[in-house]
């Protein structure tokens, strides 16, 4: 397999919402194509009779009763917001106003 063809870093960076410089795109392409060529070795293990293991230990008791408890005050929760107004996070406009 042509290892240079494994990953289109510029496209994946868009999906991941990380802007990359041209230099980063080129460097990561080299690095990640090498990593992806290495991980192809997983193909050699027969996993046809194996269930995927998403968690190291079985978890049976993840649900709890849904009861109100103590939580952060609005002020504490908002203290790290980079831009805020009236106790709410400010973001750039995402919808056009209807006229």
């Amino acid at each position, binding site marked *: 397999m042509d290892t240079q063809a494994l990953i289109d870093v510029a496209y994946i960076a868009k999906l991941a919402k990380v802007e990359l410089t041209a230099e980063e795109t080129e460097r990561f392409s080299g690095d*990640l194509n090498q990593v992806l060529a290495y991980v192809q070795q*997983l193909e050699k293990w027969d996993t046809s009779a194996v269930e995927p293991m998403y968690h190291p230990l079985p978890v049976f008791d993840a649900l709890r009763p849904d009861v109100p408890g103590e939580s952060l005050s609005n002020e504490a929760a908002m203290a790290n917001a980079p831009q805020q107004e009236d106790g709410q996070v400010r973001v750039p406009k995402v919808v056009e106003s209807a006229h």
Partner: protein
Amino acid sequence: MLIGTISHWRKQLLAGSISPSELVEEIARNIDSRNPGINAYISANKEAALAEAARADLSLPLGGIPLAVKDNICIQGEPTRCASRILENFVSPYDATAVCKLRAAGAIPFGRANMDEFAMGSYGKNSAFGATDNPAAPGHAPGGSSSGSAAAVAGGMAIAALGSDTGGSIRQPASHCGIVGLKPTYGRISRYGLVAFASSLDQIGPLTQNVEDAALLLNALCGHDAKDSTSSSHPTEDFTAGLGRDIKGKRIGLPKEYLSSGNDPAVAAALDKAVHTLTKLDAEVVEISLPHAEAVVAAYYIIACAEASSNLSRFDGIRYGHRTANTNGLDELYSRSRAEGFGPEVKRRIILGTYVLSSGFYDAYYAKAQKVRALVAQDFTAAFEQVDFIIGPVSPTPAPALNDTSMSPLQVYLSDIYTIPANLAGLPGISVPCPQPEGARPIGIQLLGRHFAETDLLRVASALESALA
């Protein structure tokens, strides 16, 4: 350069020969004089520590003991930066459960330990706040990602520290710095307030000067937490119960796959010495096989990066963390804030993780890796039918030079081959230093145990530690 263990300082505090405030001052003096050269801490809030020392309750098990905390574990009112620019101005509004539990046992959080950004790295070099030197081998990497935690303890700037271990990030820096590092069973310690890297692999644990201190900290840290749905309800115990007891007749497996010719001769010699020492303690060391040992790095980096790409999507410049000043719309705000905030290794792993989860590649990479993970776990289930513990190296080599830039990302990933399996299978593992000749770099030996067998694991680790000393 070490500063004295938890049990040493507890005796001094209880005898009244030093007060908690004086102990904080003593550690602060060491930080002031040594940290500029070592860079183990990103910050250390002495005033907050002194305020807590003034009301320390010495009747509690860790009363009056200051402890360093890795920069990815939240402390209320303190910065939690994960050594990243994206969280440079973040101040945690709450305590991690592990920190609450340390406080409840009387300990005083003091100092934010440097680390590889978001716990991604093996040498402590991926920090936005600069690399950390190794006090036990100056000019060499302290290991990572709990680089600052290990260097603070090895450099006498902390009595002990909290770290986190996703693929070896406690055990490997402990090995490189000549101290003890314990990764407990997955779920033993709540992950609430630990900034998530790979949620099915992450575990908090102690870095200490000896095995006894690791047991003392584990006593304080364990227990179910309703705020972490994966935290275990397994009963906690007195983890010091096995310390000092003999290990006669214990069966210890030596995986033949771990006797690789790729191991540095000093690492191979240390492993030989540890095996010989255990035999002299009347333990029975037998050769075992872990047939999928060579598959672990490939499976791990797919799973860890996939989980990371999902977990780190929360850093988007909206609710907290760095927001770019330079944007025309929401999409650009996300991608530019992340571009400015994340360092290169974090970007690399987010992209790898996004790729293996993307449409058309999910089955070939992510699902396949999770199946191979099951095979790796089955290897351990089978091995623990024959033996009680497994011994092996922590890292194939001692710490590399700090200025060594010859390794590609893949080569760095491959150095995690011996620590990754415990995370994939959720097993407890500990790194115990094997004393080296004067001037040589430290080397640790790893012991792995069955799920929730920490008491017995610490018993064997302590016997090995004493016999090697």
